[in-house]
């Protein structure tokens, strides 16, 4: 359940921003999760609920934006959008694509008071 330590990192970032940007309550958090990151969205939501307790983000809603994975086909060179490390090349059907994006895990935006 690494989502919990990720959610705790998220809360640390929010608390640091609260001190820096002077807000006392977070209404919503917008997160970006890449499809190739090893994060389960539902587990992330659950971990978020636990991690925000007693913090400025206690009442915040979590919005999640999923970014597709990207990979290069070693055979035809096509830059493909993929949803998993097991996806074949949509252009030529080759396996063994080389992932080159879509593993991000970012906090993008906060709506605060």
């Amino acid at each position, binding site marked *: 359940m690494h989502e919990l330590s990720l959610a705790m990192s998220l809360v640390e970032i929010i608390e640091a921003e609260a001190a820096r940007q002077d807000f006392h309550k977070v209404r919503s958090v917008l997160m970006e999760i890449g499809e190739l990151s090893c994060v389960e969205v539902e587990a992330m939501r659950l971990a978020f609920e636990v991690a925000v307790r007693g913090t400025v983000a206690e009442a915040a809603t979590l919005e999640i934006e999923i970014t597709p994975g990207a990979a290069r086909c070693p055979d035809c060179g096509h830059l493909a959008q993929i949803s998993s490390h097991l996806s074949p090349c949509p252009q030529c059907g080759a396996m063994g694509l080389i992932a080159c994006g879509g593993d991000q*895990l970012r906090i993008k935006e906060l709506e605060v008071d």
Partner: protein
Amino acid sequence: MCLTCGCGDAMDHEHGHEHGHEHGHEHGHEHGHEHGAGRLLRVEQDLLAGNARHATAVRQRLQRQRILGLNLVSSPGSGKTTLLTRTIERLNAAAQRCWVIEGDQQTSRDAERIKAAGAEAIQINTGKGCHLDAHGVGHALDALTLEAGGVLFIENVGNLVCPAMFDLGEAHKVVILSVTEGEDKPIKYPHMFAASGLMILNKIDLLPYVPFDVDACVAHAKRVNPRIDVIELSAHTGEGLDAWISWLNRERDALSALLGDEPPPPAV
């Protein structure tokens, strides 16, 4: 003091600090506005940025000392610790230094086994944590007497999921899979195999007794990660260990070739 985090502490302290005080304080004034009326702040921060900072510090420290850092990952029971004890015997016989950081949820049993095999080892107990992080590894390095050259093995918590995401400052992740597990593990747990530079297929002495298709397993691993190296061995019988030791030597030589043989004088 920890230069990366400034925590002024040795091992075993908590960074995930508790909040004993109440943050959700009441406000005497009225907030009455609807959702959507708050102030919007662009933050754009990576959740793993903190870990990445610590990992970079670990990596630079190891590179400065020309130490090859390897992060050993697998499911529980794949034979990581036995592989390490055999490897230590081989490296000691060749007068090559190595150190081990042992990660487990509880007990220091593995660190004791490593010490008995003849290497300096330190145990990190993650408690309920399911993976090591780079901050803990940084502090574990403080407790080891590192010398220039050699290999640092970081034996991660037995878990094929969570450790995949956490860079510990290693040169490579090495994933160990034993033939008593399913040959389809690489496609069941693709993140770990995608993140690893080498797959070790362990316990090959048991191949006559288990229905494990080596070729299919390697094909699965290459499908997830076309660049992954594969070594088949048995830590128990010693078969295939030569290939593993050669791989270690090659990677250490590659590190020296990249950075130059002689480490710079230690920073004061």
